[in-house]
């Protein structure tokens, strides 16, 4: 089943957008090509398309305001978002017809490029909204982050307790593995799902990506264990680190998926604001030098 913002009110806004595109095309092609001007933003049809585009941009930007006004009676946010998606896509056509594919190194093309970037980031946003929640739910297997972190805390407490039973060297390695575990980090690290965890073996901290270094270290100690108790301890620790590995993977993937779902807004919103101001410059500059 399609999510509601796509199929809202039986694709009402899809039809509205298609109607808008058809009307814009008709307006565009009604421009005489043999007249005083080629098809462009300066004919009355061009001005009409431009006004339509500007109104669309302003209205599309208002979604951010509408989302925050919980008491608004102006339609449901779902409906607004559905219209936002379809009319935003239609804007791409309207604005392109307005400029008639005339580009240059000027403020007008700047506004156009910003608009394209906003729409493209929006398309990405729509894609992740449609594609990622399923992966996110599958990854978390019904657990929320709080539960997972409680589980991690529990495992780590058990590991600490177990490590205290080993010799000083072992407990130093294990403690450092816990302490130097990293889940988050920079945005880039989160989005790439990079694991910057380290572990201190001896005097140097080595890469402990996916807990593999500490697991390898523990495994290498098993054959060298002089007493049975030590071997049992190592086995228990290996078991715990195995569980920890799975848990960390899940948390990291969770962070990555949610990062991918959030990142586009860090472009979409500032670019929208930039677009609004570029639009003002575009309109004003046309009339300053009329």
């Amino acid at each position, binding site marked *: 089943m399609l999510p509601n913002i796509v199929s809202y009110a039986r694709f009402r806004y899809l039809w509205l957008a298609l109607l808008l595109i058809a009307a814009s095309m008709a307006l565009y092609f009604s421009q005489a090509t043999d007249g005083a001007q080629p098809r462009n933003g300066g004919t009355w049809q061009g001005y009409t398309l431009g006004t339509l585009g500007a109104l669309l941009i302003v209205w599309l930007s208002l979604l951010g305001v509408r989302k925050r006004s919980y008491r608004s009676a102006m339609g449901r946010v779902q409906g607004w978002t559905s219209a936002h998606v379809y009319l935003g896509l239609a804007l791409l056509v309207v604005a392109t017809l307005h400029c008639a594919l005339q580009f240059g190194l000027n403020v007008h093309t700047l506004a156009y490029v910003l608009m394209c970037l906003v729409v493209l980031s929006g398309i990405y946003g729509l894609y992740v909204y449609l594609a990622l929640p399923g992966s996110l739910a599958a990854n978390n297997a019904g657990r929320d982050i709080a539960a997972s972190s409680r589980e991690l805390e529990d495992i780590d407490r058990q590991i600490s307790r177990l490590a205290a039973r080993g010799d000083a060297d072992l407990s130093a390695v294990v403690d450092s593995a816990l302490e130097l575990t990293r889940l988050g*980090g920079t945005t880039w690290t989160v989005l790439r799902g990079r694991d910057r965890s380290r572990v201190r073996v001896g005097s140097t901290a080595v890469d402990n990506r996916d807990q593999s270094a500490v697991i390898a270290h523990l495994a290498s100690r098993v054959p060298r264990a002089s007493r049975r108790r030590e071997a049992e301890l190592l086995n228990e620790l290996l078991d715990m680190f195995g569980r920890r590995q799975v848990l960390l993977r899940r948390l990291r993937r969770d962070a990555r998926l949610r990062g991918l779902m959030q990142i586009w807004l860090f472009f979409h*919103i500032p670019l929208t604001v930039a677009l609004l101001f570029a639009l003002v410059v575009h309109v004003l500059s046309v009339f300053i030098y009329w």
Partner: protein
Amino acid sequence: MQLLLRRRSGDGQGETLDHELSGKTLRLGASARADFQLPGLQKEVRVSAGRNAILRLSCRTAALQRDGALVKTTTLAPGEAVDAGGYRFRAFAAPTGFDAGLEITGDANYISVLTAEVQRGIRPWSTRRFSWLAAGLILALFLILPFLAIDNPAVARFTSLPGIPDDRHWSSGELSSVHRAAGVAEDCSACHQKPFEMVRDGVCTDCHQRIREHADVHEFAGLDLPGERCAGCHREHNEPARLVRQDNPLCTDCHASPDAWRDVSDTELLAVHAFSADGHPEFRLSRWVPDGDGAAHGWRLQRTRAAPATLTDESQLKFNHEVHLDRDKVQTPNSREALACASCHVPKDSGEHFEPVRMDTHCRDCHSLNFDPFDPQVELPHGNTRAAFEALEAHFIREFTDPELRAERSVQKPRRLPGKRMGEASCEGSGLDCGLREAASEARYQFAETGCVTCHEVSDTGADTPIDRWFVHPVKLTVDWYSQSRFSHQSHLNLAGRSGDAICLDCHAADTSQKATDVLMPAKDNCLGCHDANRQSVAVDCVGCHQFHRPEGTPSVEVRDL
């Protein structure tokens, strides 16, 4: 501020320790300079007092978690709480002696730091700061700076630096090549003189001083021709460059229905829709017509809407095109070949009209004006009747007053030449009388029988003196037969499969014309053969033949808003 800080360890289940802190702003964190140590708290939290026991908590970055949102600053009334880095900060009503109370629970162990990081999600930059930065840059660089530079030379110097945007970035398209000239192309204010004001016509006429309106604006005052801005038709900054309107509506918007606006007395303007058999009226032929007998009152340019074949050329010249194009009758003096059209009609550089046909350059080789078989080198001057008479008199008086010449002439009889009068062999009387008599008879011969009269209309006034007796009608050849249109002979001289005179004769039937009164101009039908708008042939727009800015129009500098 006196703050009662209550620290509860663990999840609030553990022991509780109260601390008294004083200071204007208190720092809680993990660093050495903190007023109160909270191990593992990465972002230092600063606490200051507001009014009515309200606490103000702030963080350098948005690390305070309140109602699900991350903020940099928040206020806490007693009972309210905020989370940061694994700790929970809750304000409570402090006992007397304290300004406020703050309870801290939780533990920033590395796991809570880890999961807080995961929970917080990504934050590559502040959306708000990025938005304002982008908006500010766009406004400053692309609007404010270029706008200030219009009137401020100091700012203009700055924006002219490479890489700094200026008002040229407001341009919506390239200038047409003719305007990419020094002083215009680089300086927007050369044309855009006042912000928010359309370009005035005076800016155009500053350079285009000789441009004229479409018509006499006083005669057509009702049309308000100067009311239409130059830029109404001449749109700059358009891609592809299109400075001059080529479309038919430029003309047909008005000329399709002239009844709607023309003066009722002007019946010559007929409706035009396109260049087709029924969409365009027959051409109006322009001819010079003599006013009065022998153009006594000068010449009138007469424009007549009629088939050229029904009209006569009133130039007063006698000429037979057919004879001159007949190889058997006329040949070139040197190569003895047939004359070609171009022997006399040489196009001007404009490609539209022709260099004038002149007696001296085109006719004299065959039609020499010698008159005395004794002295064939002597020719009459052309174009001046009085000078011709005087030359005749001077010639014959000299001949009859010089005894040697007179004797020689009476003995020798020259060979008789066709078209030449045989002069008197001998004359009884004074040299002056004989000379004048001989001159008068030669004049009669030249003006009435052969000579001038071959090509010119000559009237015999019957006066006594020869100089008053013969009147040669002046000649005025029409140069521009269709004065309201433009035509390029150049571009029509390469008609497919045709060459030489055949191309000329396609439109001008000179090879069958026997009289100079024949008008050899083609009519509309001739043009329609190729250019009929209804037949998908080689279409021509109105401006292909007609000019909008006509010579008859009022000079624009006189009537436009300058």
